[in-house]
């Protein structure tokens, strides 16, 4: 299985294959990482990619700021008209988390990185200021 992920300006070619029984090989830009199937509690492609990128991050000491999210803040002031996620849900780049109405514009607020939702700090119909924390991630 192959896929391409773009984070910030960097493009990652990711290839996942079964190296042995119960051992998966995840190749990230020609670097290989191995996981037992038990390491991957969830079996969707996004999680594979996230965990492979985690390994690369740790091994190379590189921090991708765009990816490691601790919280999602409101980019502008307005009223939260709907919340599109739940506590415990895993996010990936581009995932819609809420809709905010400002000056009668509809703004979909999306995640910039990967993370798991720990707390949702706002409710529907709540007014938020620009910079207010909407979601806290684990």
């Amino acid at each position: 299985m192959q896929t391409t992920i773009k984070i910030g300006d960097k493009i990652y070619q990711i290839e996942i294959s079964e190296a042995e029984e119960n051992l998966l090989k995840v190749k990230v830009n020609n670097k290989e990482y191995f996981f037992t199937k038990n390491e991957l509690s969830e079996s969707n492609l996004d999680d594979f990619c996230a965990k492979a990128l985690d390994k690369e991050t740790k091994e190379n000491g590189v921090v991708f700021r765009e990816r490691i999210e601790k919280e999602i803040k409101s980019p502008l002031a307005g009223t939260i008209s709907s919340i599109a996620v739940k506590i415990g849900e895993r996010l990936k780049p581009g995932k819609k988390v809420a809709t905010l109405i400002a000056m009668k514009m509809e703004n979909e607020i999306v995640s910039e990185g990967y993370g798991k939702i720990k707390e949702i700090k706002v409710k529907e119909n709540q007014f938020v200021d620009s910079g207010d924390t909407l979601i806290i991630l684990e």
Partner: protein
Amino acid sequence: MIIKNYKTLKSTNLKARELAQKGADPWTIVVAEEQTGGYGRKKTAWSSPKDGLYFSIILPKSNIDDLQTLTILAAFICAKTIKENFNLEPFIKLPNDIWINGKKVAGILTENIIGKDVKLSVMGIGLNTNIAKLPQDLENIATSLRIELGKEVDNQKILEQIIKALKEQLKTISE
């Protein structure tokens, strides 16, 4: 400027969003002769029978701080276009509607996708131009240029004037 004309669309905003996500260039314009699911804010229906002017613009990405001026700017341009072409007295019901003689004639819905920056920005404009008769439930609250003027107007000319003016005005705040 690329203008994509469609006979019928569910919504020009939805089509513009779809095209933008597939990589269509800013200032791609999506025009539909009629919309079957036209909507305004909070997904309230926008009646879009044939003979109106319904279009959406894929906007260049603005700074987040500039987003809030987009709709007002477009409302001002639409009102100015109506006033200058037809000698009518449009009233801007801030920030996104235009009224003539106490009835709504145009509406604007800007939709953005935002992370740490603006990922996508689409502006939809619905202008009741040549609609001869509005649905009964809207007759008291909406109007059209044709009803106000007693004659048809040139949809293509109005479209081009609005886009040209918007492009000119947005130059200063977009990339």
